[in-house]
């Protein structure tokens, strides 16, 4: 009788032990957990409200479909043909007013690039690819992608660049020209916005002792 009770309790304990083990350590690592519980998010949180004030267009590149900000409405002097009523070649001359004097091309070197690498001199409302195909200003990323292919891959996946609003779907990503000035795309050197005077003092004192 005594023995039986003992066996029962041992079995019970073992059961509890095994059960709790399973519950507690259901996953061995965070990657197991991610894999185990992975499913497309259709929950209550969305970025829709945050995106409400931004004009967006949907693009599909390879297997990725997402939103990017509309561009043409943001360009101050669009449409270009309001001034560029004739092709650039015909407008070049003494009497035409000088324009775009503030734009200096600081992008690759002049052997590789000039204005016409991206702009279509015959049809100023359009951009053009290296082979002369027209590209809409809203899809200017396609021009960048011609040379910057690895950045393009990362951008499509979401490793390069920034979201327009929150993490929650729908995905809206800034496009190249939202962060980079296409005429001078690299980031400038500058001073950090923050300096911790308290840490500096503490460390100085630390050295003095």
């Amino acid at each position: 009788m005594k023995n039986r009770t003992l066996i029962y309790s041992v079995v019970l304990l073992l059961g509890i032990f095994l059960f709790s083990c399973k519950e507690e350590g259901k996953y061995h690592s965070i990657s197991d957990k991610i894999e185990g519980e992975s499913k497309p998010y259709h929950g209550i949180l969305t970025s829709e409200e945050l995106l409400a004030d931004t004009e967006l267009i949907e693009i599909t590149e390879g297997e990725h479909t997402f939103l990017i900000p509309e561009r043409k409405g943001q360009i101050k002097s669009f449409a270009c043909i309001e001034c560029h009523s004739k092709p650039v070649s015909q407008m070049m001359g003494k009497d035409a007013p000088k324009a775009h004097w503030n734009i200096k091309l600081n992008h690759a070197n002049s052997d590789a690039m000039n204005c016409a690498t991206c702009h279509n001199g015959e049809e100023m409302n359009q951009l053009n690819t290296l082979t002369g195909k027209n590209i809409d200003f809203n899809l200017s990323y396609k021009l960048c992608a011609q040379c910057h292919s690895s950045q393009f891959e990362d951008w499509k996946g979401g490793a390069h660049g920034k979201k327009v609003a929150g993490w929650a779907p729908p995905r809206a990503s800034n496009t190249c020209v939202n962060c980079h000035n296409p005429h001078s795309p690299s980031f400038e050197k500058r001073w950090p916005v923050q300096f911790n005077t308290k840490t500096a003092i503490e460390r100085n004192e630390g050295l003095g002792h």
Partner: protein
Amino acid sequence: MSDNKKWFSLDLGLNNKKESSGSCGCGKSEGSCNSSPKEEELSADEFYEAAINASIGEERHRDGFEQVFDVKMDRRSAFKKLTASLLIGAGAVTTSCSVTTGSDTKEKAQIGWEEQFKGNYKLMTDEEKQGTINRLMRSYELRTDKKINMTAENAAEDVLFGYAFNISKCQGYMNCVSACVEENNQDRNSEMQYIRIHEMKDGEGFKFDKADDNYYHEVPAEGHFYMGTQCFHCDNPPCVEVCPVQATWKEEDGLVVIDYDWCVGCRYCMAACPYDGRRFNWSKPEVPENEVNKNQHYLGNRMRKKGVMEKCTFCVQRTRKGKNPACVEACPTGARIFGNLLDPNSTIRWVLENKKVFRLKEDLGTEPKFWYFMD
């Protein structure tokens, strides 16, 4: 009020007009109490004993981990504790029962009492959570005449937050650091900062002892790279294990949070964190009134007090509304990527699956949800 509350509270008669025995002797919300509460005379030693009993009670006989929050008691011991509490909070009781103090002061005292004896946030029902944030908002209004907006959103289902940091992109501008300070109402006096940006020499790998996290010169500096650290919201957080009062824990969405009102300031967690993720308030945190971020979360950027621990919460007040953390939004280079690890369509998942990612001190088994990668 339900009988199975997880703590006992003192009713000063503000919420409850009916006769209540043992609170301030009369049960009236205003005016004087003619009969003073029945108090036993206690010696200093007895008082000390009673005070400890009232605050931690049986828990002091238990080991840290075994502590239970819902200590059951009978009417007699409850009354004993109540008496002791009355003594500790004599000030509040006096104010409450006095003729001369206004209703604002009484309300303050009432809120003070209820806050003092509320339970651990982790164990609260949604109703109780709402109760405490309502009190905190009201108390801020009473003190400053300004309104704040505090929420208590719980973790959303099917969400597990994760973070990725692109070392090739970070230029050391520190926009993230200042955005974080402003968003999270961090103490301006001690210049507390959750985020550190480490400037490291190219070609030497991660040498934190040789890195500079408080540089002030034009960046990026020639021959250097930059990487940021903050709380990594470990999936297996050692800081949570060591807390003797369970004031810090991991939420369902993976955020490691602190109940600032339950923390006793022992700093065990700070010692246990292998990543320098935690910050302690050695002095009373000060934020100029016009700089206070008034959109707050109980577990996030609400105002802290002296002697409690705090740290990055992945901006719980923002992320539980679908927004990105302030650092992610502020970074001008796109070095910071945030999202839902459980969503296979999220950008963070693409980074984890397509870039070569690594974490700091992976061998410790802390499983940080914060990955680094390069272009």
